[in-house]
């Protein structure tokens, strides 16, 4: 079927065209905008479902648009990309609902939702990219579309954060650009294939290939917030809560991690990586990031900043899983892509709710909030426990597989890193939970929830509840075939070929 090759493009276009259409809507046209947003998000989920069904049955979708001189824009639905697409589609819907409530009564909404949709289409593009070139195109596109979201508030602080964000991401993009052109002059337009393509490059170019590998990691590492390159992430916290949620859970950070997965598995190939002995370095970088992020998180009083550093550390689990060779660690890493996304988005939704409902943004102010906002804090608790890795939350599954994988490839130090970081996770999450539920507020008496919160309660509350629920379900039903874990096993099977 020829038409079915267009399916990936349709999926991309649902959010892209929505974005463009929203730009042209007048500011006051709230209902049309909301309808357009939600309708398209649902449509997208439906299309993704269709795609998923096809891929599961072994159908290959490939959309190819020749751009110039042998470089094509390729949209390719393989099992790995589907995982990411699926995640982004679902979380887009939830975040959109949340954002509609969150932004009620503020200005510049058309611009916000326009870029919001474009940002998701960029993420979809990254997920579906069938070659490095396409990946780069959407990666840069993501930078451009998230920038207006980061500076959305237009305050001095926001603009400053936006500048930092741009500086990091554009530099990363430039490095990536450089590396990619270099690679393409050695190996031509590099289509992603399972188990990589670069092993065919002649041995005399291997030193260059290794340098390119690290340049690529550097480029993607900026967005994935690998440690020396993470500076933008905590600063970008000034953005509105839905943006932070999107940035941390789905779009930016994940795009970086996803890029690294693509490079290691589908461009270089795991065996070729082993042959070049380049994964060890990556693993060490990831481990440092994990520990460093956790420690920094401990000392933050601002809730969103603490979550930001938590992201720094958690995303590197994915990279660690990729770098620790072996199928089981791979499963752990890739599945964490989904799990971390779901859990982190819950946390950010909740942080946003606290800020909106009770004007609380600091952990020291959180004593006893559980009593005033029980649902929000309930969702927060589930997600935080998941982050720590308490069974039966989803986070446990990923950590389990990571640990098992490390044992399997007999890299004990990785297990140690995991344990240490779990301890640290507990150290920075548990006090929050404790304070929220069991401590009494010593401050001035409770003034009551804001009117904004009471008016928009359903928009703001349902999304975190759903994601919290998903956190639980993904943990409990991890064994089912269409659960993230099941799907990741399928991916791993294809990557390792056995």
């Amino acid at each position, binding site marked *: 079927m020829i038409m079915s090759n267009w399916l990936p493009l349709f999926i991309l276009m649902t959010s892209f065209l929505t974005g463009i259409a929203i730009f042209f809507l007048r500011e006051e046209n709230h209902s049309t905008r909301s309808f357009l947003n939600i309708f398209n998000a649902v449509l997208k989920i439906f299309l993704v479902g269709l795609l998923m069904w096809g891929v599961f049955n072994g159908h290959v979708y490939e959309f190819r648009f020749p751009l110039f001189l042998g470089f094509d824009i390729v949209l390719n639905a393989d099992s790995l990309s589907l995982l990411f697409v699926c995640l982004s589609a679902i979380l887009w819907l939830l975040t959109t609902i949340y954002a509609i409530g969150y932004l009620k009564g503020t200005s510049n909404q058309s611009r916000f939702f326009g870029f919001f949709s474009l940002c998701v289409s960029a993420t979809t593009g990254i997920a579906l990219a069938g070659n490095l070139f396409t990946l780069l195109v959407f990666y840069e596109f993501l930078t451009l579309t998230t920038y207006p979201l980061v*500076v959305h508030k237009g305050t001095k602080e926001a603009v400053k954060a936006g500048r930092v964000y741009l500086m990091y991401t554009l530099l990363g993009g430039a490095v990536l650009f450089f590396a990619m052109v270099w690679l393409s*002059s050695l190996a031509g337009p590099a289509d992603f294939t399972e188990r990589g393509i670069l092993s065919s490059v002649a041995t005399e170019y291997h030193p260059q290939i290794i340098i390119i590998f690290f340049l690529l990691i550097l480029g993607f590492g900026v967005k994935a917030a690998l440690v020396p390159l993470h500076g933008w992430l905590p600063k970008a916290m000034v953005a509105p809560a839905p943006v932070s949620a999107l940035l941390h859970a789905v779009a930016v950070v994940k795009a970086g991690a996803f890029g690294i997965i693509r490079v290691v598995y589908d461009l270089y190939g795991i065996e070729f990586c082993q042959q070049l002995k380049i994964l060890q370095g990556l693993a060490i970088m990831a481990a440092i990031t994990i520990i460093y992020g956790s420690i920094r998180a401990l000392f933050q009083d601002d809730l969103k900043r603490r979550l930001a550093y938590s992201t720094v550390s958690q995303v590197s689990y994915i990279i660690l899983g990729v770098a620790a060779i072996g199928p089981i660690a791979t499963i752990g890493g890739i599945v964490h892509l989904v799990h971390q996304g779901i859990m982190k988005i819950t946390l950010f939704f909740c942080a946003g709710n606290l800020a909106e409902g009770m004007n609380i943004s600091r952990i020291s102010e959180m004593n006893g909030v559980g009593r005033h906002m029980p649902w929000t804090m309930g969702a927060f608790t589930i997600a935080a426990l998941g982050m720590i890795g308490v069974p039966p939350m989803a986070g446990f599954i990923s950590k389990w597989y990571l640990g098992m994988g490390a044992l399997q490839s007999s890299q004990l130090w990785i297990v140690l890193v995991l344990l240490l970081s779990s301890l640290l996770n507990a150290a920075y999450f548990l006090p929050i939970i404790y304070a929220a539920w069991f401590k009494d507020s010593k401050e001035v008496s409770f003034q009551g929830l804001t009117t904004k919160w009471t008016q928009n309660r359903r928009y703001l509350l349902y999304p975190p509840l759903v994601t919290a629920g998903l956190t639980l379900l993904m943990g409990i039903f991890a064994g089912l075939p269409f659960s993230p874990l099941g799907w990741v096993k399928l991916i791993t099977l294809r990557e390792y070929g056995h």
Partner: protein
Amino acid sequence: MTQIIASHASVWTIMLPFLSGVLCFMAGRRIGTLIGVVTAFILTILTLNLGVSVFQSGPSRYAIGGWSSPLGIDIHLDGLSVLMLGFTAIVGTCISMYAFGYFKDRKGLKKEKNKHYAKMGTYFWPLWFFAWGGLNVLFLSSDIFNIYVALEIVSFSAIALVALKGSVDALLSATRYFFLTLLGSLVYLFGVGFLYSAYGVLDLGLLETVIRPGMISTVAITLMTLGLIIKTALFPIHFWLPPAHANAPAPVSAILSGLVVMGSFYLLVRLWFETFTGVIMPVAGQLLGVLGAIAILGGALQALRQSRLKMMLAYSTVAQIGYMFLLFPLLAGNSIGQGFAWGGGIYFSISHACAKAAAFMVAGSIMYALGHDRIKDFRGLAQRFPIGVFAFALAGMSLMGLPPSGGFIGKWMLLKAAMLTGQWWYALLIVAGSILAACYIFRVLEITLKAANPGEKALHIPLRMQLSSLAMSFFAILLGLAATIPLEILKIDSPVFFQSMEGFIK
């Protein structure tokens, strides 16, 4: 090879602008404007038609007056010239549409001021069409002396357009522009004199066959290159460009930065890689490359320091010209890299034309609305003037070289040429230049995104202006998506070995 065709379409593309320039002068402002806009559209259709015919039947020559070269003057049509014609037409049409709105009476302005714009509008059209006609002559001519006359037409109309505003700044920059561009023309003419004295022919194609390496050729090429470098405003002789481009009315800045710069660059490329291929020394290319490199960095750093938007864009032009000149050292490398260098340089120049024209149009719209172009007072512009800022952002993408845009494709190809020929320092430079470009573009964008100062007054910008700048910037982006078409056209009768364009070291 090339055939003689009986089609007169190419003559019409040259003569129509002159004809309508004359008509505009005769008809006065109101009717002149209409004539101008209609002509622009006709020209676009004509050039597209010409492009299709070249695409189908290959390159051709046309002997003006029936006297073919060496006695007479030939018009030659090949991929490169058709591409240049086509993009001039597209950019020109957008600029014409923009000028249509720009010189109209402005609501909310004093009568005196409006009279000023009306008078500018009266003379803008004939001068602009002469510039356009001159460019078309330049792109199609195959005779080095005829090209000199074309260069003069372009320069004179450009200078008059710069001076159009009548302010001291405008007059001063026009005067400076005049001296340098005339110096450039004369030096070029001297080179022509040397070539003719040595070889007795003026036709580019014939020269290619008779030219021999030696003292005289070197001197001639040096002189011609020097002249054209002055006109293109490459690094050490770039100082005249920013004031001239920044002090002109917005449509004029778009014409200058977009098209006029492209014209002299085109000529330089044509001479170096078709006529003089046999006698160019690689070291000369490296020299131009070094100048280009300094221009990229210096221009971008200067752009960062500017407080006025148009001045910033003008310095950005200086930097982007530097990129175009990277073509010269990169083309000297191996045959795999050549195709990329050639394609990249040309592609860069056309996408720069689109992007910079769009950016200047937006700058003009902002000046129209606010009455100034101080960057620090752009707060809240994204909210009040979203189409313009969006167009600026799109144009900026191309200037920065972010995908998908024409600038990206151009940079990609140049970068690849640098990699393939092993001149990786140019690759680093290209990347560094992009980052600097991002710095100055986002410096503007971030201020527009800041919350607005309440109570600031602004004129309403006509939709026609907004849409034409938007269309122009879309074109800059479209160049990144539909790169195949221009590149295929460029391959027609290309002097460079294009076969291995997909190639990589294996």
